[in-house]
């Protein structure tokens, strides 16, 4: 086998990414209600994991690099969690009458 051939794992990853793209577009047109968003985001996370672990070779890196790579997503998760906890629950706490002075 010649050295310049793409490794099989890369070809499968590419095909898998395109298949997931087709799946997510197909899924977007199905009447699933709130589940449409969950499906789109789940497939997006799967695609990102393929790119990050295989194309970006994170699965071959040491724990320190994986920790650094995870840090950004970790802080992003905290930012989204704390901020959206406010916006999601806001309708449950409608503004009351103005405080008496």
């Amino acid at each position, binding site marked *: 086998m010649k050295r310049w051939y793409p*490794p099989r794992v890369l070809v499968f990853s590419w095909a898998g990414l395109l298949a997931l793209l087709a799946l997510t*577009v197909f899924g*977007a047109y199905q009447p699933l209600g709130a589940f449409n968003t969950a499906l789109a985001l789940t497939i997006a996370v799967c695609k990102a994991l393929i790119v990050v672990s295989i194309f970006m070779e994170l699965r071959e890196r040491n724990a320190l690099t994986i920790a*650094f790579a995870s840090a950004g997503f970790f802080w992003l998760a905290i930012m*989204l969690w704390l901020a959206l906890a406010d916006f999601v629950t806001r309708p449950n706490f409608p503004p009351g009458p103005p405080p008496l002075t």
Partner: protein
Amino acid sequence: MHEPQPAMQFVDLRQQNDVAQLGMWVFLATEVLFFGGLILAYSAYRIGYSSGFAQAAARTEIAIGTANTAVLLTSSFLVAWAVLIARQREGRIAGLLLWGAALLGLVFLALKGIEYSIEYRAHLLPGLSFAASGPQAQATHLFFAFYFIATGLHAVHVAVGIVVLVVIGIRARQGAYSERYHAPITVAGLYWHFVDVVWIFLFALIYLPGRSS
């Protein structure tokens, strides 16, 4: 050709490669939070205007968006392939693959330009050419403001990546990289793949909502 030597602060080239990759991941972590702020703003407004955002998202050009996603995923595949074979001293082919990926980046930007012009003519560009009426006018305005800021910033990243890929492609064809010395091409690849990951999420947030109703 002279053998590459590590910079003086490193024990060997292996350590230099590891440090370069670690540094790139630190930069990408800041980029995650940069785009993360936009995604937080999008999420907050989408919660507030759920039906308006769905209707506005359904007005985006999903055919162009899907084609562009396939284009970027394919360019990432070419870059991942190039990075691997450049380490095995197949620099000439690796350079061609990087230029192919850069060409796909140009295709992406061209399709994005066509998309922007369609939206401009449909009066969906807040600030320059925007006209909407009805109960969802404000949500449409907010959605397309996010759309142009997010995809515009992403397009800037793609444009930077194209320049990087072309330059690294030239260096690869000169035989600059090997199993021992490959930090520049590996780090450039990390950047390009990250731009791809950002697009994967933008695609899900911009083009897919509101299609089933």
